[in-house]
């Protein structure tokens, strides 16, 4: 399949009072049409910044995209003029953010917020746009959609607002949907509703999805391929099946070990990852995970490993073969 999006060596940095923060450090991946990619990592690992950079939504200054290419349908998103990128955002790439409470405008009706993009990108007139907006709300499962167009966001519950956000992101039938922790603020039963909805829409509309989350459980049921990020680097990339059955990077191993499972019948002690999340001020000389790693060897402190193929479709950035056990 043709690549819909090709990201190469993306680097994003932020200038702060304490110095330069290296948020994303040379991230490369590609995404085929209709594919679902999961990006997993803890807070501060650069997963959100890496996709915000693609959409050119990083405030400059203090942020800066230091290098990289992001070719979407043959054109580099990072080299587009502000005018060109505005036609991509919303129209060809839709985005759903984490917090549905703050990403809707509280003083505009839901209908107005939905029709804005339709009039702008699809060239619809007011009536057509309103008609389409009602269809969209119906599609995401909001009852009496036509009557609710004139309601304001505060009249919707959290789960409903996230449905509205999804309707907005899909309004111009984009080829790519970027979902940045869209269910983190929601309860589990509502989260299950939203995930089912996205799966159904993906099958109906055939769009590609980048789903960003810290929850390895959500990605397991949703994504074909998963990227694990740490300190702004991709440290492992594999098909979902390989990653969960055969994790190769010590950090991925640790993450999976630290998760209790709802279907777990043995009361085993959780494997915790020692130490603290990384400090992104300044680039580490060696592997960024070395201070917390159970497998660390001398080389880890000297050289940062590159992301390399370990088996077909499975890449990791680590000097140690974790299947051989701990080196000490």
């Amino acid at each position: 399949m043709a690549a819909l999006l090709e990201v190469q060596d993306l680097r994003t940095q932020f200038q702060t009072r304490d110095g330069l923060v290296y948020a994303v450090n040379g991230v490369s991946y590609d995404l085929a049409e209709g594919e679902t990619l999961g990006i997993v990592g803890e807070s501060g690992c650069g997963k959100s910044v890496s996709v915000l950079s693609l959409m050119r939504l990083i405030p400059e200054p203090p942020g800066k995209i230091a290098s990289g290419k992001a070719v979407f349908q043959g054109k580099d998103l990072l080299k587009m003029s502000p005018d060109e990128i505005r036609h991509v955002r919303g129209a060809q790439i839709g985005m759903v953010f984490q917090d549905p409470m703050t990403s809707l405008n509280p003083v505009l009706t839901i209908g107005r917020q939905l029709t804005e993009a339709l009039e702008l990108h699809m060239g619809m007139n007011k009536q057509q746009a309103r008609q389409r907006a009602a269809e969209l709300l119906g599609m995401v499962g909001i009852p009496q959609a036509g009557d609710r167009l004139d309601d304001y966001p505060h009249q919707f519950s959290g789960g409903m607002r996230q449905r509205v956000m999804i309707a907005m992101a899909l309004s111009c039938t984009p080829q790519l949907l970027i979902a940045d922790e869209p269910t983190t603020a929601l309860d589990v039963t509502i989260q299950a509703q939203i995930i089912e909805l996205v799966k159904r829409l993906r099958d109906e509309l055939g769009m590609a999805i980048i789903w960003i989350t810290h929850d390895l459980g959500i990605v397991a049921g949703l994504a074909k391929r998963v990227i694990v990020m740490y300190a702004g680097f991709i440290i492992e990339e594999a098909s979902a099946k390989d990653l969960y059955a055969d994790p190769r990077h010590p950090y991925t191993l640790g993450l999976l070990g630290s998760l209790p499972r709802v279907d777990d019948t043995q009361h085993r002690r959780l494997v915790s990852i020692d130490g603290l999340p990384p400090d992104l001020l300044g680039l580490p000389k060696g592997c960024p995970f070395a201070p917390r790693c159970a497998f660390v060897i001398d080389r880890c402190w000297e050289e940062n490993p590159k992301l390399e193929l370990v088996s077909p479709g499975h890449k990791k950035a680590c000097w140690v073969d974790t299947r051989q056990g701990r080196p000490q």
Partner: protein
Amino acid sequence: MNNDNTLLQVVDLKKHFPITQGIIFMKQIGSVKAVDGVSFDVRRGETLGLVGESGCGKSTTGRTILQLHRATSGQVFFTAADNQTHELTALKGEPLRKMRRKMQMIFQDPYASLNPRMTVGDIIGEPLIIHGVARGKAVEERVQDLLKVVGLNSLFANRYPHEFSGGQRQRIGIARALALNPEFIVCDEPISALDVSIQAQVVNLLEDLQSRFNLTYLFIAHDLSMVRHISDRVAVMYLGVIVELSSRDELYNNPLHPYTKALLSAVPVPDPVVEEKRQRIILQGDVPSPVNPPSGCRFHTRCPIAQFPLCKESRPEWRDMGGGHRVACHLV
């Protein structure tokens, strides 16, 4: 019912918050029925998990038990290690203050529950001074012990909370809760603000402390996987009432209440092979408002198996299905 093993007994506990209108002559026009008649007991040395979605009243239950909110009605009995039973809901003033030593709380947000102007040593030492347990040098020594117990460097006593990460702050909150050697700790979502890799550290610490100091926990959380991991028994709350209570494995392997079933099926499992085969029960709609909860069974508006008019008209009884597995549903 009150055998030697029971530390805490909660009987038909209710907490309603008034909704008022007007500025000077505030008139009560309704109430938020945050907790509306819950009964359970907690055994000495166990961890009782309390799960439910946001707004179901689980935190209010924890706070009302500790008398941080005074109950609207109902009773809470606390049997201390000296085998004396106190009715917490009837105590006030000095006798209640004395009881507070025995029961402590760990809060959800480690960023909001530590005073930014106090040093860590002052934060952990404050309960000791307030309750007159130690003074001067003795406080310092105890603080250093406590810091070591929760896995922090004892030299940190002079630092301020902003110098610590989320996981470290949560450890400080735990040290403060332990300062008075309590018997019972309410853990109100102690890990939900933390990163995944740090959550495991804190949970392991809580488990170690429990066996070391023979603590009893009421563990409030919305993460059903973590509750299964840490609890001995689990209670499931929905809209101010407990709908099911059972031992951990019984609840997860054999859930009886339709809400528990839906809740468990909604939790994602970090395994793509399992996920592919799982059947989800997707609940329709949102949790109704606790200001005006549904009549009869509170779950009937979203229940996939509700029978009308039965479920709409009568409130289901709290029945024992054998082996301490209790459930409130007409159709089980």
